[in-house]
């Protein structure tokens, strides 16, 4: 048993932290997210140069031989810097599908591009009426000879404005919420019949509604089994969730540290407000929630390759605890900053926004509690038999 990072992982952390410190300060980020593009492709190129985009892939696949822990290290630093560039959509999700289920030809065509940063993937799974259920799909891919015809509308596809490709989930058989009958496809954004409507998100990122109208796909676009991709989708979803947990941990840590620092300098009634015990204890509670969030993120990440039930329980438990911790840490960070915490000028409010929005990505507290209790019930039923 060992919770220490390897030398390579520490190096990734340190060099990424330095890069963010030097080129991703709060004011720069503010002007970038308000710009037309909303991101910096040159930052993405630098991330690629540092090796971040290839860190979580095996050497066999052309990567650096790391895995989910490397992605966790990257995303914690992204969280600290409120980095908007699409590591989770492209590397964790797009790369995850290819890593687990890509054919040799698909890996050749796409994975190298993801790792070099020249191709950017976004994960188009959510739908306006599907809530967090991966199987609740109105998007369809009708079988048509050897190929498929894709129709549907995907909602809030994070990073889509910057993407070159999508992984799209669609129903190829069965009824709307059936577990069977789900397939996943790689779809180029410039394919005929693909349109997007781009917008900013409240936490400074970019996303799109993505529409597919009679998009013709061949079996080469299929990733994973036809009609049987749900388990793969869930696995990649869990990996993305764990990476988001790491991002939230990074952001919570900064929000907390800034709050403690502010309480040391802000004076009222002639003393720094950090001298007030009621605020001290609240900041200690924030500290404890943050620490336990880190622990849960480690656990979830370490269990990503365990059997399905164990993996899902660990990821759901982490997402629930981090959702709850995020509420406390984010809200109290603003509260303790007082009126200043309400302004856009201070970073803390931007951290609060990002921490808040993590909860409703890939399933919120309620969704993951339900998933967890259902898994427990399933385990009990198995044990009873």
């Amino acid at each position, binding site marked *: *048993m*060992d*919770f*220490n*990072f390897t030398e390579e992982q520490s190096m990734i952390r340190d060099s990424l932290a330095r890069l963010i410190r030097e080129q991703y300060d709060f004011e720069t980020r503010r002007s970038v997210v308000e710009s037309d593009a909303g991101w910096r492709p040159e930052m993405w190129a630098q991330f690629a140069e540092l090796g971040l985009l290839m860190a979580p892939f095996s050497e066999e696949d052309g990567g650096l031989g790391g895995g989910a*822990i490397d992605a966790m290290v990257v995303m914690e630093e992204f969280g600290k810097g409120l980095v908007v560039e699409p590591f989770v959509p492209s590397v964790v999700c797009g790369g995850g599908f290819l890593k687990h289920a890509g054919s040799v030809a698909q890996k050749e065509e796409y994975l190298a591009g993801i790792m070099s940063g020249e191709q950017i993937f976004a994960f188009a799974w959510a739908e306006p009426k599907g809530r967090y259920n991966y199987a609740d799909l109105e998007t369809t891919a009708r079988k048509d000879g050897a190929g498929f015809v894709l129709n549907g509308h995907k909602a809030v596809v994070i990073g889509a404005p910057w993407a070159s490709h999508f992984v799209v989930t669609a129903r190829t058989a069965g009824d709307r919420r059936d577990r069977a009958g789900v397939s996943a496809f790689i779809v180029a954004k410039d394919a005929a019949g693909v349109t997007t409507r781009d917008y900013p998100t409240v936490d400074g990122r970019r996303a799109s509604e993505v529409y597919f109208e009679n998009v013709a796909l061949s079996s080469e676009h299929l990733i994973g089994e036809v009609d049987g991709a749900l388990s793969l989708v869930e696995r990649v979803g869990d990996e993305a969730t764990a990476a988001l947990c790491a991002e939230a941990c990074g952001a919570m840590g900064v929000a907390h540290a800034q709050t*403690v620092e502010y*309480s*040391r300098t802000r004076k009222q009634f002639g003393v720094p407000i*950090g*001298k007030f*015990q009621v605020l*001290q*204890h609240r*900041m*200690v*509670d924030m*500290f*404890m929630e943050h*620490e*336990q*969030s*880190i*622990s*849960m993120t*480690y*656990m979830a*990440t*370490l*269990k990503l390759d365990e059997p399905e039930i164990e993996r899902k329980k*660990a990821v759901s*438990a982490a997402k*629930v*605890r981090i959702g709850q911790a995020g509420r406390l840490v984010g809200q109290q960070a603003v509260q303790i900053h007082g009126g200043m915490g309400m302004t856009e000028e201070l970073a803390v409010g931007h951290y609060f926004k990002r921490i808040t929005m993590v909860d409703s990505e890939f399933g919120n507290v309620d969704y993951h*509690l*339900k998933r*967890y*209790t259902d898994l*427990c*019930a399933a385990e*009990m039923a198995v044990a009873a038999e």
Partner: protein
Amino acid sequence: MELAFTPEERAFQADVRAWIDEAYTPDLRAKMAMSKTGYLDREGQITWQKRLHARGFIAPNWPEKYGGPGLTPTQKYILHMELSAAGTPSVVPMGVSMVAPVIMAFGNEAQKAQHLPPILSSDIWWCQGYSEPGAGSDLASLQMSAVRDGDEYVLNGSKIWTTLAQHADWIFCLVRTSREGKPQEGISFLVFPMDLPGISVRPLPTLDGPMEGEQEINQVFFEDVRVPIEASLIGEENKGWTYAKYLLQFERGNAYAPGLRNMLSKVRKIASREQIGDVPLIQDADFSRKLAEMEMRIEALNATELRIFSALSAGEAVGPESSMVKCAGSEAQQAITELALEAVGQAGHVFVRDSWAHLREGANADLPMPEYAVPVAPSYFNYRKTSIYAGSNEIQRNIMAKMVLGL
């Protein structure tokens, strides 16, 4: 990063499990299931501790030269985890984990030779004299006096919240030997027998409603008690505060999560026996959600404890993290007793003073409620102690504000 134990560690774990299966006999298990406080009666407690001793498991943290088993940090962790997971009684800590490390570090050779062997074998029962009616969280303001008279101290004053003092053969006490300088500077650390003239023990029955003679805490009075300085004084006079702080790091430090899992598994058992409508309570959406949230809280603490343990094994110093574990662990314990109280419903109203009565041979085992409900409400009330003792959780938060946040 790696979660798994090595094959050798797994083999040790299997050994420990097999031993517990055998040594933790049905009579002890039955009694423990009905305990309101987490302890057995004196006889049961000594029986269990002597079995641990015979197997070398009573004092995993002791150095080998004093009879410790020489386990690796991971083996110690596994041992603690397995003992907690099986719900075995806690070893009464005042001897093995509290006074013994102080004697080892600061006692003279005669004191070590006299005290350490019978602590290890559970032949001498110790209690702790720290808190006083006027000195709780502010421990350094303690007033019990020790006045030199020839080669003796004369002791006057009183100690309170003294755990299981009615069973104790010896006590270790913080006493005031000087009123000059800062309050911390006039404190000494004494050890002496409980059967000396002038010592009296008054039971303080707590909210769990203990049976006669089984109260968890007491007040102890000292009236002109005479003790020999040579044998009683540990280390130097007026240095007791240093030793007391040294002891604190042993008072806290064990992992909570394994024991919490055991507590929660009992709630699950209750909830699968209790009905709500046509289904067992455990299938009720609201209650199963609470169980799931509790389980996640435990897993978060577990992961945190493993991280701390891993840092410790790697030789890093662990300081205020123990305050975090104490807060999170004790608050989780309380929350689980609360869930249990919810789970038993109306059956929780029935008060059974002697929760071991129906287990005795020839006793009338006919209870007016399910047996599992007997200790539930008493435990809920009893466990309010956990956020108060060993440095209240407010004090722990003060420590973290100072040591971690630098406020």
